[in-house]
């Protein structure tokens, strides 16, 4: 293949087996899974199998998997559902300043409903201050929501330590983890983290869009967002998207197998990419954590003096696809809240790109991407200096 798709934290290309399974499910198992005749029973069976596959990757009971339309809905269900259900016990919620928008905007919305929210600041590597976390949690704190792997800069949060602090300070505070960027790529440890809720998504692991799940530890008090026929243990009404869930299950199984080997492969891709860029001699720096300490599939780079969007489009012309953490139109600058939270200076804010890898990338693509990046940076510098 010409070019390189390096925007895998936005979405991944689906596995061919997943597509194949989905089209077969859509054709044959179209019954409403709630129907009591055979067409319903066989569709229900497909969903149960998918639930088992996802639960296996997470290492949890399958009854605890609540399927949703994706990561955003899982985060909404976890955060709004937990906050509202537990309002009698308290009105205080804690998160970090560099969460995904689906978390941040839930918190902002709940503030309008009268909840109090704390946004923990992060340092230049995206790390929170654990003492500050401990200080924030009080008797009225009902929920702490923390991202496992930050989607823009790849920081891995120390969830075991965080979980210990939360549960020591207030055992009744619920702990939600947004694991959309880590599920089936890094090892997840719900028990070790002492988590109560974990969000996962399908299309980040070569599954279809429109599917995801929230793991809800047994006994966790939660209000549904959608009311209706009582599907998904009453937490998510609506006729299930059988084919997408089947695809999600299979993608989880494929991606979740041999995880250790994959982490090594990601590390190699990332090291090679950085090495090639360093060899080229262009001026750039790494945003966020040290590359070796961050998630192996995400790297965010700053190219001083260059507008990230132009670089992105220049790479696009060479079929290299990446993402600009910040949108930089001259009329409507909207710097990324993540890069702002880690204290990036203005010229780097508008000059940063995220490269994110998947198990489908190979070393040739990485080498090509590094070369095209070098060429594009030199070309743009020649015009704009």
């Amino acid at each position, binding site marked *: 293949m010409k070019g390189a798709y390096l925007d895998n934290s936005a979405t991944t290309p689906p596995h061919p087996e997943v597509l194949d399974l989905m089209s077969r499910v859509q054709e044959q198992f179209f019954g409403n899974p709630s129907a009591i005749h055979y067409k319903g029973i066989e569709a229900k069976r497909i969903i149960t199998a998918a639930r088992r596959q996802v639960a296996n990757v997470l290492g949890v009971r399958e009854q605890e998997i609540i399927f949703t339309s994706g990561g955003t809905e899982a985060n909404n269900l976890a955060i709004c559902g937990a906050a509202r259900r537990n309002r009698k016990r308290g009105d205080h919620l804690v998160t970090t300043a560099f969460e995904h928008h689906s978390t941040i905007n839930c918190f902002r919305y709940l503030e309008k409903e009268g909840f109090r929210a704390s946004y923990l600041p992060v340092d230049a590597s995206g790390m929170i201050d654990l003492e500050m976390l401990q200080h924030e949690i009080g008797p009225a704190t009902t929920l702490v929501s923390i991202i496992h792997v930050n989607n823009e800069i790849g920081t891995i949060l120390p969830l075991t330590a965080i979980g210990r602090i939360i549960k020591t300070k207030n055992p009744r505070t619920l702990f939600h983890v947004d694991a959309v960027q880590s599920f089936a790529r890094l090892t997840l440890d719900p028990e070790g983290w002492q988590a109560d809720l974990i969000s996962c998504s399908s299309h980040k692991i070569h599954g279809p869009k429109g599917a995801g799940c929230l793991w809800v530890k047994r006994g966790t008090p939660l209000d549904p967002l959608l009311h209706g026929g009582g599907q998904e243990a009453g937490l998510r009404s609506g006729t299930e998207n059988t084919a997408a869930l089947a695809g999600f299950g299979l993608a989880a199984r494929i991606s979740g197998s041999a995880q250790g080997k994959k982490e090594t492969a990601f590390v190699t891709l990332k090291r090679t990419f950085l090495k090639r860029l360093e060899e080229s001699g262009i001026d750039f720096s790494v945003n966020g954590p040290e590359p070796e300490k961050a998630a192996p599939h995400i790297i965010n780079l700053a190219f001083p003096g260059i*507008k990230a*969007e*132009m*670089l*992105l*489009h*220049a*790479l*696009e*012309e060479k079929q290299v696809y990446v993402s600009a953490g910040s949108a930089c*139109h*001259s*009329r*409507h600058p909207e710097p990324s809240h993540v890069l702002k939270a880690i204290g990036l200076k203005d010229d780097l804010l508008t000059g940063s790109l995220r490269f994110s890898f998947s198990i489908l990338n190979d070393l040739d693509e990485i080498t090509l991407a590094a070369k095209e990046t070098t060429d*594009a940076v030199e070309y743009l510098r020649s*015009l*704009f200096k």
Partner: protein
Amino acid sequence: MATILVRYGEIALKGKNRGQFEQQLHRNLKGALHDLEASVTRHRGRFSVNCPDAVLHQITIRLGRIFGLTSFSPVYETVLDIEAIKEKAAGIVRDLPDSKNTFKVKARRSNKDFPYSSPELNRILGAHLLHSYPGLAVKIDDPSFTLEVEIGYHKAYLYLERISGPGGLPVGTCGRALLLLSGGIDSPAAGWLAMKRGLSVEAVHFHSFPFTSRHSLEKVVDLCRKLVLYGYKLPLHQVSVTKIQEALRKNCPDELGVILLRRMMLRLAERLCGQRKLQALVTGESLGQVASQTLESIDVISKATRMLILRPLIGFDKLEITGIAEKIDTYQTSILPFEDCCTLFVPGSPVTKPKLAVVERSEQNLDLEFLLDEAMKTLETQIIR
């Protein structure tokens, strides 16, 4: 089946033009309705559209966009018989709400073979309605409804309302022009005004990947889809000015960048007009909005071509232009924040009073013919319908 009587501004027409005008309007009507189950018939000084009731609403919306129409009315038809006309009139009035309790009748006899004159018809029908509905009263000044009756050669038409048409001249009766379409608010409005005066319009968009996003192209296509509703075919030409911008960056003073780029655009537009046999350029320039639209700038820019340049917006305020953009539904698309070719290269302090001699001197650093030839090689055309 429903019938709509369609009227156009015949008074403004003289001599030979009239036939051409009517033929073009007939073509435009058929073009605008080609995908609906509707037939268009030409009468003396009128058109009528016959369609199933189900598409009547859609057709009235489309007629509202056909330049040259002054008004149109959904009508009730009867045979040419006074009893049939009386019965139809009573039927129409029966369905009106009680608040419509004062009226007048306004008859018009085009077919002089019909035995009753217009005043006689007014009297007969008025008396019939008063007799049928005792609550009604005749009121010549400001009645709550007016029943109009037209006696044609084959049928009589009765109707209660006249819906205003957009006026103007039928697209295609006044020549062919090339619209410079940037993607902003102004140029679609300028194109619409040009079409309103009977010009058949083609559009050209200058882009500069990778300095701008491919989204800008989507945006221009969307704008053309809105404009084409007022004509029935709109060829959209796209030309890359990336190489020209590179040459300007390298060889010319920054502060003249916008002026020089616009002069190059006019030269490219002139070449395109030659190829496409177009007679004039249409731009969205309005006096004094930005640095490149001072009188001096417009003058220096337009001296790059000998073509006639029409500037329909020259006397309009920003608010008036926005009003047109909202009316033709291009505003929401235009304000989407994608850069156009110029914004990214706008120097800190652009020249507002350029001197032609200075501009021409800095163009001597450029191989104009080569740059224009190369740019024209990037020409891509699509027909928007």
